[in-house]
């Protein structure tokens, strides 16, 4: 249950208390300036929410009613703070040495995949290695984050996250519109609070004059698609809001009190009531004929004025989610997701946090989350802090003890569309094969990397697919390789072109033998390319 706390100390203390020590205090529910003393009466001057802009204005209005935590403005947490903080904490638990900082070749590949989903070309790798600028890594990060590819990578990611577990009818959703919405917002540098605010306050309605597939649910308007992915059902909106935007799993509480958490069944249904267009009832567990009407209440007990219309209530819900200073989950969930994608492990599983004690290095992520919040939820700013840190730039390891978490980066499988991109980078368009490739490499983006597995079909596809091998044999890389007469130079070029790095001396020697061992050089080059494309490294971010 929610802990009611009497703590109302100095602001600075509250910031620390709320955000660092994680006390779940309740902020007084917001009231309107027009009628602060009689909230039960109908509210005058409530804006009519005709357009998304109206909703955002209303969201701002509610936001302004939350207490301002001035001390927060000075919260800063840069890459150096992060490393110092984390290294100190990690050193308390383990004597495992930290992995070394990666070299330039590894860095450009890792950073490009993380920021843009793209594997850099041989030319880009060479130029980066040759660059004498001592701050070239930071400069590369800035350059990558400013690119359209950055916006596209993360738009695809969020589309995938939101739709992966959705059972919504295809005729009432438009995933591409959602992706394009994310793309435009990420590109424009819109802050995370505004993006989620738009998703959460949308209330797509059925247009009876149109067929569902002809935009009958207004699904062509991108932000409508979170609610539509939840099939407009209050229970799904509630559980997915908690799961995707707070990182906590309360879905079980739909049917019973959460087994390992403090969430109660009532709380779940009070949250669901937020998203109902009419009255909302909770069915009795023991006697399904008994139903209790639930009044909307957000997870920390925030209650909206009773007279709000359904769409106004949604905006209020968005405000409670995003701007209640006591809801530390919101900022932290985003930070943890991005961290998890970048570093390979999260501080906790991105969408199924139970009690807070499951969070590893909780002080560090809370500070990081607080800094993210007080930066105005600045997305690129967060990426900058992470990608310029030592923690991010460490070598890979398969960690064998929990205390070793973040002493190294976990090698991560590329996302299905990134695997397809990586192959098409070499082969050119695969046409219809691309789609089956994406489904063969399909993986739930919310499952930790450590839980993902490969399949035999994936191996067979890359090994034997005649389209892929045919296109590789005729690719421009192949032609370039054939024209390099010196084996050593050819091998080096093949590695750079396919794995975006130069071969180690050992590898170089090994493949020189490999080349000498065969009579048909053309075939041997095909074989070399096959080996590199089929290597575990090819589909992995290292």
């Amino acid at each position, binding site marked *: 249950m929610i802990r009611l706390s009497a703590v109302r100390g100095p602001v600075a203390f509250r910031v620390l208390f709320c955000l660092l020590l994680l006390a779940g205090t309740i902020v007084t529910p917001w009231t309107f300036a027009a009628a602060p003393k009689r909230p039960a009466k109908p509210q005058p001057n409530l804006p009519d929410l005709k357009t998304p802009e109206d909703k955002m204005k209303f969201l701002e209005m509610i936001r302004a009613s939350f207490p301002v935590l001035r001390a927060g403005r000075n919260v800063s947490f840069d890459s150096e703070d992060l490393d110092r903080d984390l290294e100190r904490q990690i050193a308390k638990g383990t004597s495992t040495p930290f*992995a070394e900082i990666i070299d330039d070749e590894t860095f450009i590949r890792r950073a490009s995949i993380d920021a843009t989903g793209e594997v850099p070309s041989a030319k880009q790798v060479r130029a980066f290695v040759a660059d004498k600028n001592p701050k070239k890594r930071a400069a590369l990060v800035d350059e990558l984050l400013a690119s359209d590819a950055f916006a596209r990578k993360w738009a695809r990611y969020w589309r995938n996250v939101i739709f992966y*577990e959705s*059972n919504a009818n295809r005729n009432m959703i438009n995933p591409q519109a959602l992706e394009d919405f994310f793309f435009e917002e990420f590109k424009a540098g819109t802050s995370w609070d505004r993006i989620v605010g738009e998703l959460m306050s949308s209330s797509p309605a059925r247009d009876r004059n149109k067929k569902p597939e002809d935009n009958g649910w207004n699904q062509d308007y991108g932000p409508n698609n979170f609610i539509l992915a939840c099939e407009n059902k209050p229970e*799904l909106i509630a*559980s997915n809001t908690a799961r995707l935007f707070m990182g906590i*799993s309360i879905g079980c509480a739909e049917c019973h009190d959460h*087994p*390992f958490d403090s969430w109660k069944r009532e709380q779940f249904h009070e949250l669901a009531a937020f998203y109902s267009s009419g009255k909302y009832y909770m069915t009795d567990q023991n006697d399904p004929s008994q139903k209790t009407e639930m009044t909307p209440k957000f997870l920390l007990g925030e209650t909206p004025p009773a007279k709000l219309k359904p769409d106004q209530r949604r905006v209020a819900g968005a405000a409670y989610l995003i701007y209640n200073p006591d809801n530390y989950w919101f900022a932290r969930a985003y930070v943890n997701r991005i961290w998890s994608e970048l570093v390979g*492990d*999260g501080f*906790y*599983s991105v969408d*199924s*946090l139970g009690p807070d004690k*499951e*969070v*590893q290095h909780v002080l560090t992520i809370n500070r990081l989350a607080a800094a993210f919040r007080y930066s105005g939820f600045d997305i690129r700013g967060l990426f900058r802090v992470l990608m310029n840190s030592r923690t991010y730039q460490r*070598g*890979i*390891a*398969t*960690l*064998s003890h*929990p205390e070793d978490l973040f002493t190294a980066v976990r*090698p991560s*499988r590329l996302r299905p569309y990134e695997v397809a991109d990586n192959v098409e980078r070499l082969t050119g368009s695969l046409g219809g094969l691309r789609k089956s490739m994406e489904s063969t490499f399909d*993986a*739930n983006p919310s*499952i*930790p990397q*450590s*839980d*993902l*597995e*490969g*399949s*035999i*079909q*994936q*191996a*067979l*596809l890359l*090994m*034997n697919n*005649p389209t892929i091998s045919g296109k590789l044999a005729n690719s421009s890389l192949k032609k370039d390789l054939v024209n390099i007469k010196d084996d050593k130079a050819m091998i080096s070029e093949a590695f750079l072109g396919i794995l975006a790095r130069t071969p180690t001396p050992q*590898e170089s020697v*090994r*493949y020189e033998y*490999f080349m000498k061992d065969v009579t048909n050089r053309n*075939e041997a080059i095909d*074989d*070399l390319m*096959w*080996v590199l494309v*089929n*290597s*575990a*490294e090819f589909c*992995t971010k*290292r």
Partner: protein
Amino acid sequence: MINNNLLHVTLNRQGLLTRRNLLQLTGGGFAGMMGAGILRTLGLNAAEMKKQGRSCIMVFLRGAPSQMETWDPKPGTENGGPTQGIQTKIAGVQFAEFWPKLAALTNHISVIRTIAGKEAAHERGEFHLRTGHRMGPTKFPHFGSVVAQRLGDPESDIPNFVSIGNTISSGFLGVKLAPFVIGTPGDLPANVKSTVDARRFDRRLAALGQQDNEFASLGASYIAQEHQDLYHRAAKMMTSSRLKAFSLAGESDATLQSYGNSAFGKSCLVARRLVETGVPFVEIQRGGWDMHQDLWKNMPRTAGEVDGAVSTLVTDLQERGLLEKTLVLVLGEFGRTPKINQRTPTVGRDHWARNFNMLMAGGGIKGGVCVGKTSADGQEIEDRAVAVDDLFATMCECLHIDGSDEMITPEGRPIRIVDEGLAIRELLS
């Protein structure tokens, strides 16, 4: 903790392993951090019955066949329409006229007439009847994935779950138990033929092994070792002698004829070959049952194809001594309205999940039983409603799988294979 999921304390209604217990068992096991693998391995250990050779063929009639025109006809009534009945070997039980061959086989086959479904939309019904669970936020696995997990040999050189045609996937059980989908019956699986000769292929594989080893030594041991394992298994599959079970090679013309020349007939034959070679679960499909209109125009051909091929399949399995251990299911996602609709140009029947029928044979199912009774107008269940859960409990029993066993989702939630069904006793021998 790398995978916090593993730290969740889970419900422990049955006193079974929870994730936390598991961690204690493995000594705080960071080995367990290798992911869900170990959980699945533990699940596999429970299958001491692995080599019993039990298997299941699911014949899925996509589109939802009409019970009134299949195995619960109502001749001479208004709702029954023009469909005539034919006598089966079960006293007092008629099949619709379109099913003469299966009617003659009812000494081996039993019928359930009173499945009480919950879903009358195709996608949701297909999910329910293939997984035993209703569609929702949890990604339930296809029953075939559960069977593959419980009965399949994890070291098998060909997949433990084959589907001819797309189907529901393995959900939270993970990709290793996903259906291996074949597009066209008789074709070898995609990409099992090397594009180079054996000598070059071996050379490539050897070089790949070294390449992956090196990657492992650089810190990617988990991914690189798993990758090598997959490539070994893929290579093993490419050269497996059992691979020919996917094809129709060596079947006589007479056999091909008896299964019928249709794609569905070939699917039945391939299913038999796969089961014969030890694949524990095969799904095959015949679509075209969504007969909102033109029902009586389309029924003879559609039903005829299935009647011929499935009766041959059951007979063939029986003659080969496989029927006893092979459970055959013939079902769709729901049934159709007893009342005939008024569509043009010609009428049909619409979606109906309240009562529909299916066939079962083999795998410990007694032949010659008719479970349940519907009213004369076909609108109500008069006797013995069978929940989908009951059906799945029966299937589990036939396959010697404990339906009350729990599977654990990645979120740490334990889910029983069958939620709360009771096996249909009168069907079990």
